[in-house]
């Protein structure tokens, strides 16, 4: 589903990705962990080209992102993204946040888009918030709306960029449980997170990144209980 080969990316003179190779299968939940500055968010953002990369290849569902005839907007419809800071549109109601892309990109009529939006809000348990503005939502609610919004285009892949890092601790659970539900439905997910419990419980595979490389990868139980590399051990000893 996702094929990444020798991905390299620099910001000015600082190389943040030094050659990433990874293959992600359909329906797989891949959790990316690592210290801050390890390049994990940049890696995630490259997957829908929010961040351009310098070298290497990314192939999503058979489409090479850098090929000249690739319509990036079409690829992005297939790849939903959830951000650390939610990035809901503050000037629109929750409902309009969700219907906008359906109406403007897919050209659906309003009624059809709203029916779909209500269905997605029900899925994240927030039908009653359809007509409020985002600033009246709690962090957990806002992130659940953001997940519903990212699902509107029925993406095949969902990217999560530290989805619970900006939340108060008591709200982390509600967001993780929505993500768990998605994983159980067979969604292909790439999740950058510091929630090791989630990684262990829901992840099919964990990638540990440091210094622009994938240092170690494996099943959660192997990586967490028997890390091979010194850097992995050092990182895990601080966070577990």
């Amino acid at each position: 589903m996702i094929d990444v080969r020798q991905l390299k990316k620099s910001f000015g003179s600082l190389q943040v990705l030094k050659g990433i190779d990874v293959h992600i299968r359909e329906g797989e939940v891949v959790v990316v962990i690592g210290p801050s500055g390890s390049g994990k968010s940049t890696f995630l953002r490259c997957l829908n080209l929010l961040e351009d990369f310098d070298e290497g290849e990314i192939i999503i569902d058979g489409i090479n992102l850098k090929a000249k005839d690739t319509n990036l907007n079409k690829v992005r419809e297939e790849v939903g993204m959830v951000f650390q800071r939610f990035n809901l549109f503050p000037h629109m109601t929750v409902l309009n946040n969700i219907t906008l892309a359906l109406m403007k990109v897919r050209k659906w009529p309003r009624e059809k888009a709203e029916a779909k939006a209500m269905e997605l809000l029900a899925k994240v348990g927030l039908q009653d918030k359809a007509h409020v503005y985002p600033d009246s939502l709690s962090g957990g609610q806002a992130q659940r709306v953001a997940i519903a919004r990212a699902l509107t285009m029925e993406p095949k892949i969902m990217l999560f960029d530290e989805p619970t890092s900006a939340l108060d601790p008591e709200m982390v659970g509600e967001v993780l449980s929505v993500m768990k539900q998605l994983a159980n439905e067979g969604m292909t997910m790439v999740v950058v997170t510091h929630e090791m419990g989630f990684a262990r419980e829901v992840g099919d595979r964990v990638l540990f990144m440091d210094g622009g490389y994938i240092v170690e990868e494996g099943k959660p139980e192997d990586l967490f209980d028997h890390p091979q590399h010194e850097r992995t051990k050092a990182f895990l000893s601080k966070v577990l």
Partner: protein
Amino acid sequence: MDFRFDIIVEYAPYFWQGLLVTIGVSLAGIVFGLILGLFIGLGKMSSNPIIRLPFSWYINFFRGTPLVVQILLVHFGAMPLFFAQPNAVASLAVSLSLNSAAYVAEIFRAGIQSIDKGQMEAARSLGMTHAQAMRYIILPQALKRMIPPFANEFIVLIKDSSLGMVIAAPEIMYWGKAAAGEYYRVWEPYLTVAFIYLLLTLSLSKLSHYLERKYSTQ
């Protein structure tokens, strides 16, 4: 001190005509300044430094030189290249438009750049094009923030239209000066002129407050 209301009464029809000219050139300056300014602001936001250059020098020139000099250059320099008999009102409207475009461009740029870049990213990640994201996500939020600086700029523009006096454009100030010259009086004509400008600028500032309230409650 006697205050000669009869001078104001006698000049009332001229002040009225002057008011229409002032409103006319100010509106022209606002409308064309907005259109031209949006274009220049977008040009200045280009990622290509070669494209950016002429736009930033346009802004440097029109913000960095006195409006009165620009009016003289336009009326006696630029307009005669196109018209045998340059019209002072037209020259004034053109000068005000060119000048306000420079300020409007900077207001647009600052407004757009003040929106969190996560908004653009969220819109793009949903498959929207850059233009769609601008239109539905960035501009509606940015325009709200632009209302106070726009009001500020257009209040300045209304007052600056009085510089049309130097090319004898018959706006309010021109008639104030004429009345002052004819009767050799200061208070009556200039207080009248000041009062009319105050009415215009206060109305604009009320309008701005109304718009701000309207859009802040969503």
